Every structure is written in C-alpha cells, then in structure tokens.
C-alpha cells in the first residue's frame, strides 16, 4: 500500500512523529526553533488551523447501523448498506479493548439480511460491556431484534419501527417444506425479540400479521412511544438520554473506576504532558512540538 498525502499537502509517513515540518515550495533549511515556529505559523496560515484536534480518549464507542444490513450477498451499489464484515470485527475489538467501557448503537435501518442481523443481535446481547441502542428515523424489520438486543433501548419520538412477516423472493420451490422453512426463520426473530424485551411471542406475532395498518403489506407501524408501550423498546429518548443511560450502566458495572466524563486538566498540564485525557498519538505531536518550540524561546 502506498503512502497517503492529504490535500493539505501533509506527508503522512507510517512512523509516528514525522509530521508536517516541510511547507510546500520551501524546504526547511533552518533546524533552529525560530524556523520551527515560523513553519508552524505558516501551516497555521495556510491551513487555517494549527493542527487537528488532539486525539481524546473515548470510553464509549458507537456503531451506526444505517440503510440495508448487508449479509452474504453484496447489494447493488445504489443501496446504502451496513456490512457485517465491518461490524463484527468492530464488536470483537470493542469487547476486548480495556479502554472501551460501553457501546452505543444507533439504528436507522430498513432491515436486511436475516442471518447478518441476527448475528449482530446475538453479539450485542452477549457483550460483557453495557450496550445502549437508539432508534432514529427507522429501525424496521431485522432492525427490531438489533434494537432489542441492547441492555437498554431508546427510540426517538418520531422514529418508527415496522414489524411485518418475512417474505420469500426469487425462485421458490413450491413444496410445503418451503413454508416450514419460512416459519422457522420467522420463529428465530420472534423468539429473539421476545427473550430480549418485555413483549411476548404471541403479541409480537400479532403485530407481524396485523392487517389494515400497512397499505401494501401485512404488519404494524410502531411510532415512538407505541414501541415502548408494546414493550419492544425501553424508553422514548434521544442522544442525550442514551448517553446518560450508558454512563449510568457503566458506573454500575465499573464502580471502582473513575469515569472520565470531561477533561478538567489545565492547559499547563496538557502542555507538560501531565494530562491523562489525551493519548500520545501521532496526531498530537506537532502541537507538542509547537509548545516545545515556544517554551524553548522563552529561555
């Protein structure tokens, strides 16, 4: 893989620490500190920013599940998809990473592959760390078990969830076993939702086969608090509520550890590297070099 150069003209070598010291059209000649500052100032002028924000440690990770949930078949590029090959390794990484304490799942999906959807649901429900889900816009079809899989689920007031039966598309072998297979697939979803929320299997099935709700389909549209009343979702709320709940769950699970909600370090502490809120990632180094250069000048 070749190296990448951003449009800001900053060469990005793989070795950390080698960040932008060369400005375009004038190779750096003076290694002295004044020259260093000058270069930094030049960068500030050219790019309108000193550097990207320092990498802040976050103990909450987020998964956004949008569009179609793509499974074993690659969907046409016209579809906006969430791929399970992205989500599953991320979930494993989140489960393993010590610095990650909780997971927020944001859903705005029309549904998708059953196997992929159930795989994600199972992974979410079996995670040892607190998981909070938030349905925004829509969390339809296979999005329902994913939302229910979290330890606690939220739905925005305007968000909807459509619960409908599974359909078969394409060539179907017309034997009674086909129906049995369809029924089995459906049972998996019904059972999962019922065991991960307060709705029972019978009621969920009723919602699935409701007539008179949808124009072209059998099923039910649940808007905001209706999903809460049916027991699929825990509470109506937004991002703030979801974050607050996640923090509470994290505190319950890791009571001994101090929560890093905000960085309260003073700028001096950050400059001296005594602040634990920022990681010493490569991105932070240029900024540190400016500070060093400025400090050096004061001597």
């Amino acid at each position, binding site marked *: 893989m*070749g*190296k990448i150069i951003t449009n800001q003209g900053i060469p990005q070598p793989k070795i950390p620490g080698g960040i932008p010291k060369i400005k375009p059209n004038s190779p750096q000649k003076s290694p002295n500190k004044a020259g260093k500052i000058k270069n930094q100032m030049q960068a500030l002028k050219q790019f309108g920013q000193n550097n990207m*924000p320092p990498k802040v440690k976050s103990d909450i*990770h987020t*998964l956004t599940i949008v569009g*179609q949930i793509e499974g074993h078949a690659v969907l046409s590029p016209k579809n906006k998809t969430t791929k399970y090959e992205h989500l599953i390794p991320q979930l494993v990484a989140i489960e393993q990473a010590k610095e990650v304490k909780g997971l927020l799942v944001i859903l705005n999906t029309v549904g998708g*592959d059953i*196997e992929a959807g159930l795989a994600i649901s199972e992974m979410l429900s079996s995670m040892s760390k607190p998981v909070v889900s938030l349905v925004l816009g829509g969390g339809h079809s296979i999005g329902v078990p994913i939302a229910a899989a979290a330890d606690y689920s939220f739905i925005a007031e305007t968000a909807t969830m459509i619960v409908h039966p599974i359909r078969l598309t394409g060539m179907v072998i017309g034997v009674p076993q086909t129906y049995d297979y369809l029924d089995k697939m459906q049972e998996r979803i019904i059972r999962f939702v019922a065991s991960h929320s307060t709705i029972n299997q019978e009621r969920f099935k009723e919602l699935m086969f409701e007539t008179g709700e949808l124009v072209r389909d059998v099923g039910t549209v649940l808007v905001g608090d209706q999903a809460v009343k049916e027991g699929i979702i825990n509470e109506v709320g937004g991002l703030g509520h979801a974050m607050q709940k996640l923090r509470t769950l994290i505190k319950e699970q890791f009571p001994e550890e101090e929560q890093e909600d905000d960085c309260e370090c003073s700028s001096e502490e950050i400059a001296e590297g005594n602040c634990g809120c920022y990681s010493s990632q490569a991105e932070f180094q240029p900024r540190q070099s400016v500070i060093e250069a400025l400090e050096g000048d004061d001597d």
Partner: protein
Amino acid sequence: MHYSIFVDGLWLDEDNEEMEETMELDYDGVTMEIKVTDINAGEIVRVISSDPNDYLNAQYQPGTKIEFRPSFG
C-alpha cells in the same frame, strides 16, 4: 434471505448506471471508503470506525483528497 421493508428486488437491480468505484483502505488503524478519482488519487467518502473521535479528525473528513504513492517493500 432478507427481512426488510424495502421493495423486493430493488437491491437486485442489475442496471448499474455509472457507479463510482470505491475501495476500502486502512490508514493509521482507521478503515475508510475511498472514491478512486485518478490512477494515483482518491477522495475520502466515509470513515468506517466505532471510535467517535475518528469522525472529529480533520484529516479524515469526507471529501479530503488523498494521493497514492508507489513504494517498495
């Protein structure tokens, strides 16, 4: 097998009108989708990460142009 509210067959639509070619690239531990604009250039389409801070990184903003450079080893 799908469980979706999308109209059946929409995702199986075969008439691919000039879709832009994208590729996935791992850079500094962050996966991103890159639209290939030239033989040695591309543009970030989206960042695929669970770390919310990766989305704040000014360098990874969608639309940022990147350049591919050949290298050995």
